[in-house]
């Protein structure tokens, strides 16, 4: 039984504990950033940010709404990135049969530039990033080292509100359905994003497009 994240955005306060804890656990260096008129920083996922809280704000019928989207790899059931990489370098991208974690290995370094681009373009969620220093492709690891020792991924461990949930797929799918039913009352457009295809299921209260805004 693969493991699955349920990210309940209706509970997210964008405290960014997940974003920072991810960097700490994975020992990722800090980027030099600047203020560009938004709290979203760094502006996008990058080789040193596997997890990024996206902010998007609107005024709709005089009412302010602010969406938070703790973005990360979806750990697809059938990962297209792996499919692309497999045809060039075996073992560059692997899927842990026990946890379902999709892992970019050091062998991604062996992918040629155009192959890297192809791998990246295969991802429907625009997740993989190339570390131009090492030549390795980077993204969320599901904290597979922790998970295999029965510990929660760092982002989940850190989350104070119940936004980040993690467990066996069947349990997470059941929780997702329960929460969706509860949210439908107040948010008729509430939805699960591609729940059958991914092991990182986002529970959204509105159209997914609203959660992304061009930044900076």
């Amino acid at each position, binding site marked *: 039984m693969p493991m699955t994240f349920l990210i309940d955005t209706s*509970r*997210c*306060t*964008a*405290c*960014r*504990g997940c*974003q*920072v804890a991810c*960097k*700490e656990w994975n020992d990722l*260096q*800090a*980027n*030099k*950033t*600047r*203020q*560009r*008129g*938004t*709290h979203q*920083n*760094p502006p996008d996922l990058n080789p040193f940010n596997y997890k990024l809280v996206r902010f998007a*704000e*609107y*005024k709709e019928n005089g009412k*302010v*709404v*602010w969406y*938070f989207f703790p973005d990360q790899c979806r750990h697809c059931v059938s990962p297209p990135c792996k499919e692309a990489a497999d045809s060039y370098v075996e073992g560059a991208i692997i899927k842990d049969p026990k946890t379902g974690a999709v892992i970019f290995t050091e062998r991604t370094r062996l992918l040629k530039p155009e192959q890297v681009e192809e791998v990246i373009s295969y991802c429907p969620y625009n997740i993989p990033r190339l570390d131009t220093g090492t030549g390795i492709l980077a993204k969320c690891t599901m904290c597979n080292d922790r998970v295999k020792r029965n510990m929660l991924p760092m982002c989940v461990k850190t989350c*104070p*509100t*119940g936004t980040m949930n993690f467990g066996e797929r069947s349990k997470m799918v059941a929780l997702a359905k329960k929460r969706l039913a*509860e949210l439908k009352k107040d948010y008729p457009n509430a939805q699960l994003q591609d729940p059958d295809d991914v092991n990182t299921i986002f529970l959204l209260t509105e159209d997914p497009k609203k959660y992304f805004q061009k930044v*900076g």
Partner: protein
Amino acid sequence: MTNHWIDIKNADAILIMGSNAAEHHPISFKWVLKAKDKGAAVIHVDPKFSRTSARSTLHIPLRSGTDIPVLGGMVRYILENGLFEKDYVVEYTNAAFIVNDKYGFNDGLFAGYDADKRAYDKKLWAFETDEKGIPKKDKTLKHPRCVFNLLKKQYDRYDLDTVSKTSGVSKENLLTLYKTFGATGKPDKSGTIMYALGWTQHTVGVQNIRLAAILQLLLGNIGVAGGGINALRGEPNVQGSTDHCLLWHILPGYMAVPRATWPTLADYNKANTPVSHDPMSANWWQNKPKYLASLLKGWFGENGTKENDFGYRMLPKVEPGVDYSYLYIFDRMYNGEINGGFVFGTNPLQSAPNSNKNRAAVDQLDWLVVGELHHTETSDNWHRPGVNPNKIKTEVFLLPSAHRVEKSGSVTNSGRWIIWHDMAQKPIGQCRSMGEMIVDILNQVRSLYERENGVYPDPLKKLDWPAYYDSDDMAQRINGRFLKDTTVKGKTYKAGDQVPSFGALADDGSTVCFNWLYSGSYTKEGGNKAKRRDLNQTAMQKNIGLFPNYSWCWPVNRRILYNRASVDLKGKPLAPQKAVIKWTGKGWEGDVPDGGWPPLATGKGRYPFIMRKHGFGQIFGPGRPDGPLPEHYEPVESPLTKNPFSGQFNNPCFKKTSNEMDALAKPGDKRFPIVLTTYCVTEMWCGGGETRNTPNLLEAEPQLYVEMSHELAKEKGIQNGDPVLIESARGSAEAIAMVTVRMTPLQIEGKTVHLVGMPFCYGWTTRGVGDSTNRLTASIGDPNTGIPEYKALMVNVTKAQRLRELQA
């Protein structure tokens, strides 16, 4: 907090006002969301739509500094519509007390104001008493001078129109707020109020909170599960440091600091020990002499004798009428009246108001000792931008501090839970904990006095001072020990044993205790209870999430203060579905009650508000220097020229310093037409000294910004992300414009008023992030506490032509 974090989940309605709880106390939202899951309305009243607002049911923007109009309007609405909890109000609050006939209120001023002294004669606000000295009451609430009717009269002026045009809150939003929160006035419903520095940091700060207390008393929301006045204290230990007298005006355990007018212990006790002649009033502070004597014995040990008042006579005493708080310390420093000093755990040249003045003030010092983790704007003041280090005379000693995780000790959270933490790793290099520094420094000073003597060395030489710092020993002394064999409730303790609780403390010098509130936290029977992590609880306790065996809570492990107000006169819970305590006929179950006396109806009970002299919740509060009832005054800097509620523009007692660097904008000053409010940011801690040096946090919030509405940005020709200049009467700052729908222009008295907001965590010692926002703020403060008015000032904003402080 009167209650605690978990208890927020028990609320039927949550009012978050003067706080950005989700951003500054992220864990609070675990419990807010649990309440919301069960159907609680969550209303956030705040100038800015923040991450808190995003998760609330409703966000209501208001002009900064108009909390009293909004809440005063709610008092009026509750009284007018009979939403208050009548029995609670009559039996447990001072609503029925009769105020003497000299009391009055006229055009913004209470009776007894002396304009020269900028102070009131509070005697004119006293209650009428009977021949025994007990306040006269009219439980029918008909007497024209009973508190209930004075309250009605006070807030009769706070009608929807006036409140709306003063605060900028629409009438529709006001009514939604009033109806929603007013609905918690039913006995089985409760509403909680979560506040923080958004309420305290005003020249009416204490009165903001007083008004919240009045509301909660009217609605019967104090002492109950899911209720209370909940001050969200700063991470990590603001509660603990306040309990142990971080502030100048108190000794540990909230006892007044000695004054020159109280030369002996008897004088102190006479002036500070309340006397009640009502046998039903517990009047807990009548025990104060025991707590003070035990504290003095803790400080002076064997050298504290009956003859020298246990050492009281050796204590330094403050001059009456002199203020020793921040604003005045910096003022005296600026005037060259202070030669040197110690700064630990704070970065005042970044986080105190009016940085330009404070930085110049510190230049006057001969020497400065700073205990810090990192170089800060305070430690490095002598080479700040724009000054010539050769011209600064100050000699600075930087003592490298151990980080929190490099020492063991306790932290007291907002819910008054004392939680022990062990040392995770030894301090690096030469770093030491502050406890070690203080103990060692004073030992050196003591040995200097031993060798060289001095004018009056006794206060230091006679201290019972440890040879080295030991946090466990300190925790034991805080709890307290017996100095002689003593029998308490049939149990005999030996000299040197830990006291079981503050009930065992004595005023005859036979006990020591550093803080009576913490007595019971480290006992012979229970050990160090701050280390407890036991999740067991009874079904009744579990129902409201009390967790009495997890850590320990002051006082006496009582998790919800004033819980005797959660039951009726017979001891039956007013909200049975979330009972806090209940009387079984033999004793109390649930939480630790406010004293073990039986219910009031037995005739052997005590009134629930045991810390008040008369035992009642104070709707009328004659102890505050600036009035017994909260009244709206404009912030000292305001966009208005007239207070819509009275002829008195500002709080008539607000504190200020008056040096050449203390310029203030005039009411309605055309040079500074925009309201500025300042705040923390989730990713940075206070002045940012620690977190700016944490690369992953600086990555997330890298530079000083100013949040403004699209409307204001358009008026000023500013685009999102543009560098801008913000100017006040005292200084200027560069920031990046964050143009956002989350800031709302407000209609105030028929005119559009804009508001901008800035964090205060960016300082020049971190390259290119900007410099202190507090260069804009002013040395003005609340009359009760001296806390500065950081939340409402007047500024102007323009597009910056070139960058000096911010790196592109």
